[in-house]
Structures are given as C-alpha cells and as structure tokens.
C-alpha cells in the first residue's frame, strides 16, 4: 500500500516536473535542460521528497521507511532514488517529445515493471527473508535452468536466422531426444538384483555418453525429417504457412511420441555419481582436464591438421574431429589417476588442520563441498562448453561461414557453390543436437520425462531467443541465462516482497510477461539489431 502511494506520488511529481522542464526553453526554442538531465533532477527530487516525508513522520512516506540497514536517512534517500530515478527518466523522456495516447498506455507498463522489479526487490531485501546462501542457490539454479533454455533457444535462433521462420516444433525435438534416451537410461540403471547391469552406477561417465548420444541422435533424426517433410516443400510459400505447419508438426510429434511411449510421466533414474554437492577434488579435476584438453587439442590440430589438410584436402573437418575424440578418450582414461595425483598433491601441499577436519566432517581438503550441486555444475559447464563449441563452428569453420552466407542471401550463396539445402539441413542438425543434449540435462535435473515436456521449455526458450534478439546467436545464449536467472530469482525477489502468496508458482508468469514486454518495447530483442531495418 505504502509502496503504491509512493509510486503514485512519484509519477505525479515526475510528470509535473517533466512538463515544467519541457516548457523551460532557450530563446531559440531548444529546451534549457535536456531530458537526461531533467530525469536526474526529478529522480533526486523524488528521493528528497521521500526522505522529507519520512522525517516528517507522515504515514505516506513513513510507511515506506523500511528497516534500513544503512540508517533511515541514507535508506530513505536510496530507496527513493532507486524508484524515483527510473520514473523520473521515463517521465522526462516522455515529456521531451509529443506525448501520445500510446505513450500513456505504455507508461502504465513501464511503471508496473518498475513497481514490481525495483519496489519488490527493495521490500524483499529490506526484510531479509532469505540468507545470502539461499540467494546464491536461487542464482545457481537459475544459471543451470538458463543454460538449458539457452541451448534450446539456439535452435530457434539458428533456424530463424536462416529461414526467417519460427520452428515451433523445436520443443518437440527436445522432447523426442530426452524421452527416447530415458529408455536407455532406465535400462542402464537396472540394478543387478533385477538382472540389470547397473552400468549407470558402475560406469556413469560412459553411460551418460551413451544417453547423450542417443538423445542427440534422436533429436537430429526428428529435426531432419521435420525439415525435409514439413518445411522444405513450403520454402517459397508466404511466411505464415510454415509457421502454421510448425504448430501442426508440434502437435503431430507430441502425439506420435505419446503413441510410442505412452502418456504417463516417467521418473528418470537417479545418476548416483551426480548426487550431492560438488567437491573441491571434482572441481580441480575438471579444471585440469579442461586445460590439458584444450592445450593438447590446439597444439595437435595446429601441428597436424594443416599438414593433413594439405595431404588430404578433401577430409575437411574430419581430422580435427578425430583428434578431438582421441583426446577426449585419453582424458577419460587419464581422469581417475589424475584425480588421485591432484588430491594427494593438494593434501601434501595444504594439509588439513585436525580441528577443521572434525568440524567439517571431512578427511582431506578434496572432500570440501562447494556451494553448488554436482548436477548443476555439470549442466552449467556443459551448456557453456556446447555453446562455445557452436559459436566456434559458426564463426570459424567453412560450414559456419556458409551458414552465415545463406542467412544473408540464398541465391548469392548458391552462386558461390553452396548447396543451400544441405546448409539448411546442417542448421537443423546443429539446433537439434543442442536440443537433444538440453533434453538430457533437463531430465537429469527435473528427473522426469513425458510427451508434453517440450512445450513449456520450448516456449521459454523461444522467449529467451526473442529476449536476445531472434536470429542472434550470442543473444540467444545471454537471453537463455537471463531468463533462467530472472525466473529463479524473480518470484522471491520481486513478488514475495510485494506480499504475493506462493510466489514461486508465478515463475512462468514472469517469463511470459518478459516476452510480452520485450515484444512491446524492444521487438528486436534486448541486444538485437532491428532486422527489418537492417534489411532495408
């Protein structure tokens, strides 16, 4: 209530002052104060007013006098400024030009965002509902979820970048992989007493490789068929036609897979190796493997690949891929001896004090637990690595260059000798591989799969792609992480502060509100270039 009345007061003050500043004109009819300056003045005025009301004990300002950790003066000025400044800026900008009915309507949205995001955050943080560790947990969960969104979002953006169509069936490509791989995972998880191999427990790494491979291959097959059967014949049709087809294909795939695998929700088996929190030893091993892997990869490809390319020019990208696979295998074999070396080395170098050992219930430093779960760590790092991989392919390789060329002009690309159909297929393949991988990550963290599981993540990832500017690859990555984090932090940060009960259930509302807002205010995305303008 108090927040509401304060915001109302700010709006009245801001637009009043903004109007005054607009009419302050130099003799040559230019405004005396530009709108940025006016906005700052208005913001400061709001902050001072907030403090004044609070000091005067008025319930109007005083009710907003939160338990300020910084003392009432700084606290009131600060909170006043945090809300007053953006409103002041908007008001001053609106007033600097012609204020239309549409502006008035948009103003409503803008104030609502400020009210919810800034007002809600202040109220939330002023009454510490959560500890720093809990906020950090929300954040990490957001990153993990965002990594998954980003991987799916790349599929939307890649296809849009080349065909200017939104592949609404992409969520189903994601589902197809995850759902199919579930059966492999379940088989691998069968314990020995039930006649299974329990391979998932005895050899989790290879099991996961297999699960990922099955998922990615399934997704790829589905996406390639989808493109071939549903989209390719419509390539020259008006844009609305493939869009509608995509929605139809989405339903078709959902119910086909429901037919294959049933309509029940299946619980994904637990991967015991990924249970619990990440330990220092795991983290050290990861960093060591990453460094060794990257260095040996670049060293060998630099040394060998050029020579190979010259000797066997038609192998194309095969040699670096083979080298990469060999290195990965070597690292896999190397990982457990390397880990013992690392752990014992660390123990010798930094012996653990006995008091600490008893307090933390650990015997070596390597067992120290980091504030992030194993599964989240796996999701975040693997999604980032895959995204870097994709980015490298698009920016650095011949096929990536051809993709970018086809995205700009298909006819001219064909004049260069590019098989446009093949490049489009490759685009679908890349998007599908990322979606298939995302599907497994999603199943690992949420521990369930069903035929409808692609719908919501697909829509969220589409939102992420739009947030980053659809067609823009780094944009999709950032949009995904951004959405994941906002969705995870948002309910506790914005909504609970405003006293909304069961705020966590509203996380989807936050995501789709963001979609609507971006479409209203920045249809080209937060960091996007306006494609329609650029094409002109």
């Amino acid at each position, binding site marked *: 209530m108090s927040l509401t009345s304060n915001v109302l007061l700010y709006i009245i003050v801001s637009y009043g002052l903004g109007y005054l500043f607009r009419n302050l004109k130099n003799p040559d009819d230019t405004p005396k104060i530009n709108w940025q300056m006016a906005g700052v003045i208005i913001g400061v005025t709001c902050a001072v007013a907030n403090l004044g009301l609070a000091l005067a004990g008025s319930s109007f300002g005083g009710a907003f006098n939160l338990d300020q950790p910084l003392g009432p003066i700084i606290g009131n000025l600060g909170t006043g400024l945090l809300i007053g400044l953006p409103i002041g800026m908007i008001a001053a900008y609106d007033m600097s030009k012609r204020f239309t009915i549409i502006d008035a309507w948009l103003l409503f949205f803008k104030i609502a965002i400020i009210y919810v995001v800034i007002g809600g955050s202040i109220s939330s943080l002023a009454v510490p509902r959560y500890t720093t560790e809990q906020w950090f947990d929300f954040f990490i969960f957001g990153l993990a979820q965002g990594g998954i969104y980003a991987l799916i979002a790349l599929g939307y953006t890649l296809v849009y970048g080349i065909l200017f169509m939104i592949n609404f069936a992409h969520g189903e490509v994601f589902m197809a992989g995850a759902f199919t791989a579930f059966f492999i995972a379940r088989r691998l998880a069968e314990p020995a007493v039930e006649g299974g191999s329990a391979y998932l427990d005895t050899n989790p790494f290879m099991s996961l490789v297999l699960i990922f491979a099955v998922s990615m291959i399934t997704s790829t097959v589905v996406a390639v068929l989808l493109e071939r059967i549903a989209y390719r014949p419509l390539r020259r049709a008006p844009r609305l036609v493939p869009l509608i087809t995509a929605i139809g294909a989405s339903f078709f795939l959902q119910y086909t897979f429901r037919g294959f695998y049933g309509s029940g929700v299946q619980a994904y088996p637990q991967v015991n190796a990924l249970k619990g929190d990440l330990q220092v030893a795991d983290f050290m091993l990861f960093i060591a493997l990453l460094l060794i892997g990257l260095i040996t990869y670049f060293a060998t490809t630099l040394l060998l690949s*050029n020579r190979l*390319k*010259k000797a066997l*020019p*038609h192998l*194309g990208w095969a040699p670096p891929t083979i080298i990469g696979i060999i290195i990965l295998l070597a690292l896999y074999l190397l990982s457990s001896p390397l880990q013992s070396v690392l752990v014992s080395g660390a123990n010798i170098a930094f012996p653990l004090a006995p008091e600490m050992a008893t307090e933390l219930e650990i015997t070596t430093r390597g067992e120290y637990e980091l504030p992030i779960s194993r599964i989240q760590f796996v999701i975040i790092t693997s999604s980032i690595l895959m995204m870097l991989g994709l980015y490298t392919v698009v920016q650095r390789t*011949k096929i990536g*260059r*051809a993709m*970018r*060329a086809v995205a*700009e*002009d298909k*006819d*001219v*690309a*064909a*004049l*260069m*000798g*590019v*098989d*446009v159909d093949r490049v489009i297929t490759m685009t679908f393949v890349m998007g599908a591989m990322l979606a298939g991988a995302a599907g497994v990550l999603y199943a690992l963290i949420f521990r369930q799969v069903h035929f409808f599981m692609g719908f919501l993540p697909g829509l969220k990832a589409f939102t992420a792609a739009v947030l980053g500017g659809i067609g823009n690859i780094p944009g999709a990555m950032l949009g995904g992480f951004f959405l994941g984090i906002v969705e995870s932090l948002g309910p506790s940060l914005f909504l609970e502060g405003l006293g909304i009960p069961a705020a966590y259930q509203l996380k989807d509302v936050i995501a789709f509100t963001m979609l609507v807002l971006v479409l209203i205010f920045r249809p080209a995305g937060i960091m996007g270039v306006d494609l329609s303008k650029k094409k002109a």
Partner: protein
Amino acid sequence: MSLLEIKDVHSYYGAIHALKGITLSVDEGEIVTLIGANGAGKSTTLKTISGIVRPRHGAVVLAGEDLSNVATHDIVTKGISQVPEGRGVFARLTVLENLEMGAYIHNDNQQLADDLARVFDIFPRLKERYKQAAGTLSGGEQQMLAMGRALMARPKVLLLDEPSMGLAPLLVKNIFETIITINNEGTTILLVEQNARMALEIATRGYVIQTGEIVLEDDAKALQSNEMVQKAYLGID
C-alpha cells in the same frame, strides 16, 4: 565450338515470359557484352546461365556440356562465376570471409593463399579492409569485392551484371580497366551493361536485347557505328 552457348532459351517468372528465345555464344578469351534497356531481360539471362532461373525451353551449354540438369551450386564448379546485379556481397561477413566464400568450391589452402594474393594484387583496397564487415564498404569497394570474390572460384567464364551501376565516372573507368586485366589473364567475360558506350569500348562482340529477345548481334566496333544502337543506347542522334 564456343565456350559458352545459350540456345533458344525461354525463361519465365511465373506467368511472365521474360526470355523469349535467347541465343548467344561466347568464345574462349572473348569479352562479349549484352546491352539493353531496363527490364529487357539482361539479368534474367545471367540468372538462367547460373541456374538461379531454370529455362522452360532451350539449353545452356558450357564447353559442350549441357547444364540443364546441373544443380545451381554445381554450375560454379563447372567454371561459371557470376557477379550479380547490385553486387550481392555478404554484408555481415568480413571482406576476407566474402573472398573465402568465393573459394567455397576449392579446398586447397595453398591455392586459397595464391588466389587471395592475386585478388589483393588486382584490388589493393580490399587488402587494406580485409577485416571490415563488407556492409561497411563503399559502393565501389563492394563492386571490387564482388568481382574479387567471383575470381576466387577460378572461373572459366565470368558473368558481370552491370558492374558500373551507381559508380562515379572515374571508378567506372577503373572497373572497366580491371575487366580488361582479368580478361588478359585468361578469363572469358560476358558483360551485361546499361553503359553501352563503355561496354562496347572494351568488348570484342556485342548483343542487343529488347523485351526478352536478341535484336542485334555484331562485332563491338560495328555496333558502335550502328544507327539504331547509336540512337537508343549511345545517345547520338
């Protein structure tokens, strides 16, 4: 036998009959020019040769091989490169990437380096800007880039669609001199132009196209003194 032959080609855009039986040929080592007014069908002729537009009737033959059933992207491999109308550089790719796209059909790194050196030799300006996004180049530089890119494919026949369009007179002269250089280095050229004066100046032979039909064909010198050509395309009464 000519290097490139177009035999009674009819091309359509939907119901629009754009080429109504075009026949022309280009011999090895020649510069042949195709001149005509707006909408006469010059670009369509080049698109038909490159396979972007497929003729409904007639054939395009390169060194005796009928290209009717060759995919568009394979026609480059056969030795035909085109600099399309309006240049068609990839605006968001860098100059170097554009040139690498030109060499898409080749896989030999050494050859790529040699060809790059050759293109940079012909167009030193491109070397200065090789890291820049092609969209930020000036119109003249984009024309150079489009030509350099086409050369990277090592074509037997180079199709140029109005390379002088929108360029300052000095640059036009420059571009035409470059065309002669490229031709002297062994590339056969089919040049589409509205600037008939300049085109006939450098060409060996010429064709005049009107509403989808060839109405005149002769040596360039003879066309220059042809009354109809003088009136319609050279602005001489």
